[in-house]
């Protein structure tokens, strides 16, 4: 506590770590997409290629949320 600079840089790392909590939501989203996709493919194996493409697309969009969190975390550590 006697060194304010070290205190602030420590808090930055803490903030970056907290920002990555949003990975919970993204992980949930990716899992949900895989769940739906695999179930649909099990029911209708003929449509597997189309479902797979859309599943990966949905996963990529869900993952984007985690990527924004990563961007925020990197900005907190390196730029702020």
């Amino acid at each position, binding site marked *: 506590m006697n060194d304010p600079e070290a205190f602030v840089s420590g808090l930055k790392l803490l903030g970056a770590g907290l920002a990555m909590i949003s990975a919970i939501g993204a992980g949930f989203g990716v899992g949900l997409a895989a769940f739906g996709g695999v179930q649909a493919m099990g029911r209708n194996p003929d449509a597997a290629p189309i479902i797979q493409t859309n599943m990966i697309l949905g996963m990529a969009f869900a993952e984007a949320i985690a*990527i924004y969190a990563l961007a925020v975390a990197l900005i907190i550590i390196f730029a702020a």
Partner: protein
Amino acid sequence: MSEEQTKKGFNWRKWVIYFCILAGIYSAFLGPSILKPISPVVVLPAEPTGLSIGGFEITNTMLATLLADLILLTIAVFVVGKFMRSGSLVPGGFYNAFEALVEFLWNTVEGAAGKWAFRIFPVPATIFLLIFVANLVKLVPGFESIGRIKEVHHGYGYAPVLLTKVGNLSIYTIDKAQKREHVAKEGEHGEGHVDQEKLCEACEIVPFLRGSATDLNFPFALAFIAVLMTQVYGVWALGIGYFEKFIPIRQLIKGGAMGAINFIVGILELILEFAKILSFGFRLFGNIFAGTLLLSIVGALTAVLVPVGLYFFEVFFGIIQAYVFYLLATIFISGATVSHHAEEAH
């Protein structure tokens, strides 16, 4: 006779693999304990390699990208070109694998874009091949561990240990057991050449080659190209009316209240276009950088068994990330060639 030969070749390959595993175990655990896994320096910006062209410094990630380019050109000239010149119609060997890959890419584009597929195909496929090769070539051993040895600027470094001498080139490694703190020397700002002469006290390794996607510039350049080409194809397909997707002035004038809402939605789409660059770039960068970090940390903890599994995981992820980048680029570009209002009219 020929069966004997193939059998012999197979055995030879098997023994090479056994030898590699034994050599790895020896150098990691039983040997002089010097070749402990060297975790690469985890830094965000690419480090300069010391080479430069006309004052333009070449970083190690740039060298890695050039290497990937070189591999692609070699494949194009010596594999595909040779097959084309040979005039044979039956594909075989490496060319067959390459053709299967391109065919797979083509099927995806054709499924998404329909009659525009032929014009769209080159852009995402080029991006895919570059990311694919760059992600796989980054996993070759020595890629992030062989480099110049350098004094650390702050924090901790490790003591250098002489390995061998080839001619008048000394090869050093760093000893993880001897941790040394960086000593700040006052009044010594203009080092540079002095560093080359005397050895560092607390050292780190600046690799010659580092995975291209671990540098933010590489994925962002590709993301920028992908989003820019989306606009280009949109204008190509729909003319200047393509931009009405972003600024729907006609709807604002004619549409009344709904027109005003559509106007704001259009502006949101304009913002979304910039968000695409961000998510494209950070997705590739984040995955590959996290993979490098994971390998370096786990490689420093356990030496022999676990990193093999993680290496396989990284190969898989390199391919998947290239595919995701390619798929999103394809879908965005083919979406831009379809008129927005034609769908609404139905």
